[in-house]
């Protein structure tokens, strides 16, 4: 078995043209991850620029209203740029710089990873190009302009379904044409080894903090840790330090779109099959011939036909559970947490909030749920208004 495996999943399934650069990345990361100077610089960026550590917030009103387990939110939405994506991007952009690269490229779905990448590029003086499905540039027009303000060039990808998976395809193609000065800053715990490992390592700061924070606040570990899952980077970051704590239930919330019994879904664990795509062996939404399915979710960030290989393995081993959450449920949760807690959460994160709303009332009052609020929802306000049939004029 090759390197970078999580059970049978993972590996490095990419065209030969990229292999030497991937080897270069692997060696560079192995070196810098133990380099004192690198870690000091990254720590400084995380605390002085990205606003870490993020809060672990006790949602008292929601807890009382739902009448069950105590609910805590890990507030990644309060990070600079408004989501967890900055944790990984600062790490990879700094790594790019150490490797002598002058340009970074990235795919983006909702635009959160694109904005974070453009931000890091501006800060560290790197050239930046972002690939975004044309469909998503329409759904998230504000984020496109935001990236441009930050100095990035945004390419609207017109191939395939014109969403996240096509943005990944195009970004990989772009990388093959220009590797010498460019690093592909992948946004999730997916793709060829070493990306799932690198992104998980940089995101694991979420659970490292949350574990210490809950022990401080409650003197015990949580019963449930929850997060939304598309590719799975905030979930992997939220789960990672709790994996060894066997009493802690790990729950990933997938985007079911209009329901897992419809064609319009993106719930990979619920409807996908094992396959090899985008550099990894994992589960993918696909048809009977192994063609990748055109998935759907109201959330551009979860609208992806695969899931990271480490999640696939956590599913296989039963260490984590994955549940589907529909558009309707996510939108209801988006509105509920806004009215109850005064937090406008990203529609992605609202998928996890929706499951908290289902699960908390079934648990005892001395039990604890930590849910990752992976991003803030300002970007989604217009889309939610459209969903509710409200006509907005700015």
């Amino acid at each position, binding site marked *: 078995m*090759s*390197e970078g495996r999580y059970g049978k999943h993972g*590996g*490095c*399934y*990419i*065209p*030969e*043209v*990229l*292999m*030497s*650069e991937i080897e270069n990345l692997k060696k560079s990361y192995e070196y810098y991850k133990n380099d004192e100077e690198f870690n000091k610089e990254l720590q400084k960026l995380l605390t002085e620029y990205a606003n870490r550590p993020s809060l672990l917030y006790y949602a008292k009103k929601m807890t009382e209203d739902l009448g069950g387990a105590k609910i805590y939110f890990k507030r990644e939405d309060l990070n600079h740029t408004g989501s967890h994506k900055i944790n990984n991007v600062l790490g990879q952009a700094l790594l790019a710089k150490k490797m002598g690269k002058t340009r970074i490229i990235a795919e983006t779905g909702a635009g959160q990873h694109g904005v974070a990448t453009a931000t890091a590029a501006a800060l560290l003086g790197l050239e930046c190009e972002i690939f975004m499905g044309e469909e998503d540039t329409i759904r998230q027009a504000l984020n496109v302009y935001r990236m441009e303000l930050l100095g990035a060039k945004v390419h609207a990808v017109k*191939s*395939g379904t014109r969403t996240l*998976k*096509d943005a990944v*395809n195009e970004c*990989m*193609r772009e990388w*093959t*044409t220009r*590797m010498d000065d460019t690093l592909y800053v992948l946004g999730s715990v997916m793709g060829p080894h070493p990306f799932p490992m690198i992104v998980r390592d940089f995101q694991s700061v979420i659970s490292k903090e949350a574990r210490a924070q809950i022990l401080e606040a409650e003197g015990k570990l949580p019963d449930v840790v929850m997060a939304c899952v598309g590719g799975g980077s905030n979930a992997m970051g939220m789960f990672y330090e709790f994996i060894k704590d066997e009493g802690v239930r790990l729950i990933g919330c997938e985007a079911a779109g209009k329901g897992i019994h419809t064609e319009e879904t993106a719930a990979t664990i619920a409807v996908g*099959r*094992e*396959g*090899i*795509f*985008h*550099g990894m062996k994992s589960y*993918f939404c*696909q048809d*009977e*011939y*192994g*063609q*990748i399915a055109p998935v759907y979710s109201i959330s551009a960030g979860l609208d992806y036909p695969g899931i990271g290989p480490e999640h696939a393995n956590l599913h296989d081993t039963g260490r984590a559970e994955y549940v589907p959450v529909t558009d309707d449920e996510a939108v209801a949760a988006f509105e509920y947490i806004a009215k109850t807690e005064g937090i406008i959460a990203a529609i992605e994160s609202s998928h996890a909030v929706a499951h908290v709303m289902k699960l908390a009332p079934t648990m005892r009052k001395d039990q604890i749920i930590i849910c990752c609020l992976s991003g803030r929802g300002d970007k989604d306000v217009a889309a939610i208004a459209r969903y509710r049939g409200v006509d907005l004029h700015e």
Partner: protein
Amino acid sequence: MSKLSKILDKKNMITGFVTAGDPSIEATKENILSLVEAGVEMVEIGVPFSDPVAEGPIVQSANVRALANGCTIHKIFDMIEELREKTQVPFVLMTYANPMYNYGFEAFCQKCKAVGVDGIIVPDVPYEENAELRAFAQQNDIELITMVALSSMNRLEKLVKEATGYIRLGASAKSFHQNKRTVEDMMAEIRKYTQIPVLFCGEVETKEEIERIQLYTDGVVLDNALVERIAEHGKNAGDKLKEYIGMLTGSVAKAQLTA
């Protein structure tokens, strides 16, 4: 030397790539016969995939058309079986990993053998990941073709040492010409380990381009040049393909004289 290497043990080879099912399986069958009639030494048949990450826009569009027109792997295997009644020119199937994984690596190789496929190319299964597939291919007398790129210099020994069939050097024609020194060094390095043919594949079209590449390699795989003609002329592309190949094979004779 393997069967495919022996058949392809020539210089200045002209071979071709077509996407199966573009615009229909019947048209692909006729187009392949036209290519064979025009004298190509081997045909690579692309299995259309929803997300062909290693292809440029021209072949991507062919993949989209083929899938929209209902091409499946079963239809492609049937087509090859029918073609084998008419020609013994080598056929190499190019497929992305997922459709093949979905079929089953072993079952896929067995089926290839049964219908008369000589080799397979899987662009997204690199050397480090191909042990299982290589074993199934060997058990079924199918060659797993080795792909190399201009960035493969430091990996060449392990890539080509056990390569069979031919080595497929992928690059754009432009980068090929900008990096002739690298190409020369690579060819020298490859020849330390193997004598099997090296075919260049990378959007070449004109006689002049092909002649220049022939000086360094054993031949070319025509990809965009054929796919574009098929896109333009559809099921009537046969004559255009014959005309084009005829023009090139004339050029090959000339290159042989001047080489």
